[in-house]
């Protein structure tokens, strides 16, 4: 960002509002993408990019989706597989300890879809907008992701 003092102040106000609105959602999506250890760095990097290119990004129809892809691109470059922390079995006795490892082994889009829809209660259109795919594609990722998660966790499915 560059410009006169007033322009910079206006941009800062706009950007602050923007971050307040999208940060919680981007944070959840990036936790699903790369795990909590790397999510914050990826988020800070993406938002930093957003600030540097704010003049262009502020005019986009889906700036959050764009910044998600910026974070995804930079995370992928680090070639580090996602790591999810162990289940605290003392406070979550009903959660299978194999869940984190199974989640990490899912293909990326399946993992993000199941994490956001089932883990964070996003709607299918919300996930579709973030990933830049159709709602039916999100449904496919969910169906396959849950099936594979069950398989990896060796959960018996009734019926």
């Amino acid at each position, binding site marked *: 960002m560059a410009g006169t003092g007033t322009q910079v102040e206006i941009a800062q106000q706009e950007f602050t509002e923007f971050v307040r609105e999208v940060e919680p959602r981007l944070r959840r999506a990036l936790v699903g993408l790369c795990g909590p250890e790397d999510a914050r760095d990826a988020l800070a990097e993406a938002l930093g990019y957003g600030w540097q290119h704010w003049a262009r990004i502020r005019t986009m*129809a889906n700036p959050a989706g764009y910044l998600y892809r910026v974070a995804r691109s930079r995370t992928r470059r680090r070639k580090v597989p996602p790591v999810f922390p162990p289940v605290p079995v003392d406070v979550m006795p009903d959660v299978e300890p194999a*869940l984190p490892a199974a989640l990490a082994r899912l293909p990326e889009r399946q993992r993000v879809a199941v994490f956001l829809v089932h883990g964070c209660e996003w709607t299918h259109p919300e996930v579709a907008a973030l990933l830049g795919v159709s709602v039916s594609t999100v449904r496919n990722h969910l169906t396959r992701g849950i099936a594979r998660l069950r398989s990896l966790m060796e959960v018996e499915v009734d019926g």
Partner: protein
Amino acid sequence: MVEVEEQLRRYASAVVAGVDPVTAEEVSGRQHLERPDRATGRPRWHVFVAAAAVVALVAVSIGALVALRLDGDDSPEVAGPSGGPTQTAVVHFLDQPAFAAGREPYTVAVDRRVPAASPEAGALDALFAGPTATERDRGLRLVASGATGYTDLRIADGEARLRLTGECSSGGSTFTVAQLIIPTLEQFGIDTVKIYDAAGTTEQPDGPGDSVPICLEP
């Protein structure tokens, strides 16, 4: 043990709560350090930043134009064999007006007739054949990223691997041929796509997710 969906809800809630939020002040504060402070007579870094941005913008624009291959050749209306049964498949092309406006989705799916015996290869063939003249008039484009096609397509257990032929360069763009190949293959029940460059390298050949060669990174 409760259903997997409920386990996910409980686990995700705890995991997300453990990640501190990032504030606008924290992010933009880094940039403030690079701004001029005329009162203290510090260097006017914004001049250098702006100059670098202009140079980068020009380079990226040239690269993106090369990557987009906005040529004027007509493409076949229908891709498929001259004989044998065919089926309908969808092929994804860049929606250039949507991309230019930052309006997602950036791709549009169009129908093609492809060989029923090998629909995945048929769809990729149709992709690299490019949009029809009518589709180009609507703003659809093949973003080839320098590739002339693909080879060595192998599909097993929901995973597809293929090697690009020709050159390979993102041209600095966040949109590459990978964004067309992956959704085009997804319709066939493929979960993971590993794209190799002509030399046979890709970033994560053994990881659980998609993989692209480094040349397709922006």
